[in-house]
């Protein structure tokens, strides 16, 4: 059996989260009643004229810079002509030969090291409307709220050599785009969509094999599975002496297979031409430099800085920088006086668990970074123990109250009065006579039972270090043990 090499290229569409549409000022908003965010422009009424959304153009150029693309100094919009009921003008305004951004690349960290995948281009276009096919009495229902919303298309080079690499590319791309906050980047909700081109060729062959396009994948895992299936299918077909047909196949999530769309074989003829309703865009080198200088710190750079600057593990730094809002939260807690290690521990071990359980995101977190830092200060200053801190954490989360307020309300301030603690220690010894016997028999660990008893009597409020110290003191002084 000959060895085969897999070749994958991905085309990602991102819905931009601008307030308004690409070429009119209707709201760009998901989930409204059908045909309520529409106007003559996005309905394709004769005589209406599009006006470019300057924010969408900036977002597209920022995306290009984040992907190390050459950002164009001259760009224009073109018409892509085809008929479909979700496209009221019978053409989509897109970009053909002069996209906003040209070649770039992203570096993706894989188990075996960093892989660099090329970006072919990034361009801006408008989305189509939505068709609901199960219309009453046959036919289709058309909702044009999405018609004309800004869509960013990011095309990769055919640089990925396995479904795993394609998956890693998508994860990195999504993270980079999320850092710009230009899109919700949610594949399940359709704000990030991905089509894949895949072919196989005998190892060592320079020419690409016949490529197949796969559509209809609604998660990164689905992309990975669709590609894995398709690679197996193509290799099996070639080994059986068949030829691969260039076609579009749909991924079926239930069977985890791809199936041919079986459309009539007709080449699309989009007859692209410059849109006469829109004048070209120009950008100076200085403008591009300014935009570049304003980019947020890249996640990989931020991760390394976190590890170095705050002395946290590379793993923790990775978790904290996975999403920009979480990384911002972490640094806000530090600005509020918390140590890097404490902030990392509380966020990763406690806060993220609460957020997950409550199905909330960090941007909608009831505990402010200042409150988290205050909690750290209370523990650091021995006002409460770490255990009490963990106890009140869910209440901080549920009520949004400051930790000090909860501590005062519940009287949870740590007890550091040695006389009070001594009384509990003596009582613990009286209640547990076996402990002294065990200690006399040389079983040093038996003292732990006393610590537990004292903590219980103090309802967790006794300072644990002081409890240990007083137990030791009393055992030596009163009971003649050298514990």
């Amino acid at each position, binding site marked *: 059996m000959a060895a085969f090499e897999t070749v994958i290229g991905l085309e990602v569409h991102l819905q931009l989260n601008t307030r308004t549409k690409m070429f009119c000022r209707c709201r760009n908003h998901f989930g409204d009643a059908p045909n*309520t965010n529409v106007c003559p422009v996005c309905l394709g009424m004769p005589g209406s004229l599009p006006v470019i959304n*300057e924010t969408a153009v900036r977002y597209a150029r920022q995306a290009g810079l984040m992907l190390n693309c050459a950002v164009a100094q001259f760009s224009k919009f073109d018409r892509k002509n085809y008929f479909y009921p979700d496209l009221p003008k019978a053409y989509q305004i897109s970009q053909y030969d002069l996209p906003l951004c040209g070649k770039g690349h992203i570096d993706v960290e894989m188990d075996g090291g960093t892989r660099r995948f090329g970006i072919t281009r990034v361009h801006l276009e408008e989305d189509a409307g939505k068709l609901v096919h199960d219309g009453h009495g046959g036919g289709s229902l*058309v909702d044009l709220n999405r018609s004309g919303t800004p869509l960013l298309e990011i095309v990769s080079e055919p640089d990925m050599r396995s479904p795993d690499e394609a998956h890693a590319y998508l994860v990195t791309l999504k993270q980079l785009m999320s850092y710009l906050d230009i899109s919700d980047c949610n594949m399940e909700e359709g704000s990030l969509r991905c089509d894949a081109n895949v072919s196989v060729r005998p190892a060592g062959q320079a020419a690409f094999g016949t490529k197949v396009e796969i559509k209809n994948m609604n998660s990164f895992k689905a992309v990975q599975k669709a590609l894995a299936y398709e690679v197996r299918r193509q290799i099996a077909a070639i080994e059986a002496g068949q030829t691969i047909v260039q076609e579009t196949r749909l991924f079926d999530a239930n069977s985890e297979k791809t199936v041919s769309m079986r459309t009539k074989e007709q080449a699309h003829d989009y007859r692209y031409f410059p849109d006469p309703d829109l*004048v070209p865009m120009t950008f100076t080198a200085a403008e591009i430099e300014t935009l570049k200088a304003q980019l947020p710190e890249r996640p990989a750079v931020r991760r390394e800085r976190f590890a170095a600057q705050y002395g946290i593990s590379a793993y923790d730094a990775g978790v904290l920088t996975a999403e920009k809002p979480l990384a911002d939260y972490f640094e806000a807690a530090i600005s509020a006086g918390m140590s890097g290690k404490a902030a990392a521990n509380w966020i990763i071990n406690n806060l993220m668990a609460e957020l997950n359980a409550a199905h909330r995101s960090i941007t909608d977190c009831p505990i402010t970074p200042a409150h988290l830092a205050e909690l750290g200060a209370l523990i650091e200053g021995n006002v409460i123990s770490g255990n009490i801190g963990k106890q009140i954490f869910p209440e901080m989360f549920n009520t949004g109250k400051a930790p000090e307020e909860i501590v005062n309300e519940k009287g949870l301030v740590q007890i550091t009065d040695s006389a009070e603690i001594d009384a509990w220690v003596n009582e613990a010894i009286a209640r547990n006579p076996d402990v002294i016997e065990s200690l006399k028999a040389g079983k040093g660990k038996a003292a732990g039972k006393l610590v537990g008893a004292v903590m219980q009597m103090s309802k967790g409020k006794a300072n644990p270090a002081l409890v240990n110290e007083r137990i030791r003191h009393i055992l030596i002084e009163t009971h003649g043990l050298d514990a």
Partner: protein
Amino acid sequence: MITRDDVAYVARLSRVQLDDADLDRFAPHLQSILSYVEKLNELDVSAVEPTAHVLPLRNVAGVDDAAPSLANEDALRSAPRTSDGFFHVPPVIE
């Protein structure tokens, strides 16, 4: 040469219905139009940048602030058929 097939293809792209007689009639028409325009090919434009737009304007864009949209009933007013706030169109067969 423009053939009947070319005319039929262009007619299909434009969703224009033509019968056999139309195809016969329009093939020479299109041919004569193209021959007339063909003259432009005599010019050497290899050093000329393609024209992106005939107007000398650049960078015309709007601010990303929402303006009122049409009311649903106004949006659907000229549609031949509607259902529950949607445009209702014949079934789509690819």
